């Protein structure tokens, strides 16, 4: 795959595929939300991404500058992402349901120089623009003419750009993709990857997802998250596979229509979506011809055994659960064809990956006992830093291992079993939500004096966001305030951060240093023992 040291992801996913004789092969079959279909060959993908690289170059972007996409799933997202990488600028992606606070945190911390978005999202950017002095250009995909010197029409820029672009030789350690991930404290952290990560994404797409150039592959993940870039762009196109991308949201009838009509051979989705399918009428699946579908994979949260049993019964297929993180950049542990699926387990480490269960003191934990899920560093897609936060990055590595923040155990036959997080981060529908971010958004509401946020078990979402709030004197809880809270969190942070349950309490439990004791809230919610309360503030 790598020739003359050219690791450039944009080049390998487009021009390289043309050089391998795939110019006229369909790279992307785009299906709009209204089920209209448009095909893009690898030659077209190459031209469109070249144009975008030239657009950025013309605007003065240089290698190392940071450019974000803030779009729902649409073809322009793929062109902009790969075009940015061709220029050796850093491509960040933002979930399209982010609110303005979430945008400000990420664009501000990264000092992003440009962003591509839609007209309907301009309002959010406009409200924070004066706090983003480094943001030079906003490119808008659905306006015909430039609005100003710095709010520019994508169509006009692309029409004026050449479709020839020579990608400079790009070493493996050149910064490439930037995703922000949530922690339990502080602001989200920018996870920086490098172009060499394509080695891991290519290898795992072949070895775990079992992809080849003959496959028609569909990854339902949004490009705002790491699965959407590692396995919705890079891995499959580095192999030359045809990818189907659908612009609509969850719709069981549309999804099964796509699986059948497009003869999808490998499908990568998420447990929440699969659990929603499980609730659909069985007739929907019975009338579908899924004979082309070889494999189904899942990622994002642990896959319940009942979903695997449902798939065996209803679809006559296994679903292979996979585990990785934004920081790992590629699949680390997985169930996969060729090894027996243990329903509920994460599977076994990918080829070349050494995973281990380590105690807090650094000692190995015997099989069957819970500990920190760790990975021996050195895989090509390992993140290289948290942007502007190298100290926290270094803290993730101890005793020769990367500490994932997840807890798990390994059984005697080498299967890993997810147990939970070692911090307070909430995994809701496969998205990590920082309780700190939600608490901060809640505190912006004038009626709220204190807030504490936890994740609680949920049948559909795996975990749901639960908020505890204490109100200011003279403020009363009401349905109007509940709606205000919901909309504020949804529009400032993200829809995924919206509390599903809200409890009003007199005060939020804190320790003597003023830190919120989320474990006390969690115990209160679950009706379990809160443990040692000696450090709690009176």
């Amino acid at each position, binding site marked *: 795959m790598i020739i003359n040291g050219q690791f450039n992801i944009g080049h390998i996913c487009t021009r390289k595929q043309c050089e391998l004789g795939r110019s006229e092969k369909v790279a992307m079959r785009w299906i709009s*939300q*209204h089920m209209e279909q448009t095909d893009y060959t690898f030659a077209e993908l190459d031209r469109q991404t070249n144009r975008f690289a030239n657009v950025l170059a013309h605007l003065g972007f240089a290698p190392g500058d940071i450019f974000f996409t803030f779009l*729902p799933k649409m073809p322009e997202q793929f062109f902009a992402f790969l075009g940015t990488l061709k220029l050796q600028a850093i491509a960040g992606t933002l979930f*399209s*349901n982010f*609110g303005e606070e979430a945008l400000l945190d990420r664009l501000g911390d990264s000092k992003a120089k440009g962003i591509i978005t*839609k*007209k*309907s*999202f301009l*309002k*959010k950017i406009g409200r924070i623009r004066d706090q983003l002095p480094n943001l030079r250009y906003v490119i808008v995909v659905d306006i015909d003419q430039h609005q100003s010197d710095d709010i520019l029409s994508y169509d006009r820029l692309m029409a004026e750009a050449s479709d020839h672009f020579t990608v400079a030789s790009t070493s493996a350690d050149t910064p490439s993709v930037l995703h922000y991930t949530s922690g339990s404290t502080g602001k989200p952290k920018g996870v920086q990857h490098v172009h060499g990560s394509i080695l891991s994404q290519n290898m795992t797409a072949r070895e775990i997802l079992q992809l080849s150039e003959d496959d028609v592959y569909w990854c339902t993940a949004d490009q705002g998250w790491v699965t959407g870039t590692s396995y919705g762009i890079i891995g499959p196109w580095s192999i030359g596979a045809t990818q189907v991308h659908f*612009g*609509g*949201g*969850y719709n069981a009838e549309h999804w099964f229509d796509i699986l059948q009509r497009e003869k999808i051979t490998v499908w990568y989705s998420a447990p929440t979506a699969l659990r929603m399918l499980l609730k659909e009428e069985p007739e929907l699946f019975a009338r579908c011809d899924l004979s082309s579908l070889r494999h189904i994979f899942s990622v994002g949260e642990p896959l319940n055994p009942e979903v695997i049993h449902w798939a065996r019964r209803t679809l006559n297929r296994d679903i292979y659960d996979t585990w990785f993180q934004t920081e790992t950049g590629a699949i680390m542990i997985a169930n996969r064809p060729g090894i027996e699926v243990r329903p509920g387990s994460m599977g076994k480490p990918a080829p070349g990956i050494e995973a281990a269960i380590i105690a807090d003191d650094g000692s190995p934990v015997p099989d069957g006992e819970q500990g920190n899920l760790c990975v021996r560093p050195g895989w090509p897609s390992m993140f290289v830093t948290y942007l502007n936060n190298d100290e926290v990055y270094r803290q993730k590595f101890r005793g020769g291992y990367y500490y994932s923040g997840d807890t798990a155990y390994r059984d005697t036959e080498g299967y890993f079993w997810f147990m939970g997080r070692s911090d307070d981060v909430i995994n809701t529908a496969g998205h990590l939500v920082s309780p700190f971010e939600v608490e901060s958004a809640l505190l912006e509401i004038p009626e709220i004096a204190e807030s504490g946020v936890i994740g609680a078990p949920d049948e559909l979402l795996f975990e749901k966001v639960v908020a505890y709030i204490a109100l200011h004197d003279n403020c009363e809880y009401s*349905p*109007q305030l*509940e*709606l205000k809270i*919901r*909309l504020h969190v*949804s*529009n400032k942070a993200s*829809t*995924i951060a*919206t509390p*599903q349950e809200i409890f009003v309490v007199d005060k939020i439990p804190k320790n003597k240093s003023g830190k919120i004791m989320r474990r006390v809230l969690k115990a209160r919610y679950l009706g379990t023992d809160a443990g040692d309360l000696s450090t709690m503030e009176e």
Partner: protein
Amino acid sequence: MDTMTSLNDIFREVFDDDTIEITRATTADDVDGWDSLSHTNLIVAVEMAYNVRFNLKDTRALKDVGELIDLIDRKLAEKG
């Protein structure tokens, strides 16, 4: 103000987008940010604005804005 007009204002508030112009044919795929979680926000906002209560089955089955309007009008008629 008819239901369509007042509902349009609710959509603009819920989805934080004052350019939204709904029609009876509008679906979740036509409104940026209309996912299953914001759908709950929308239903809560509609219930509050019209002082009606929906059951989960009704709101899950909605295919487009037209069906939502019909549901609202039906609930308002039941109230008398």
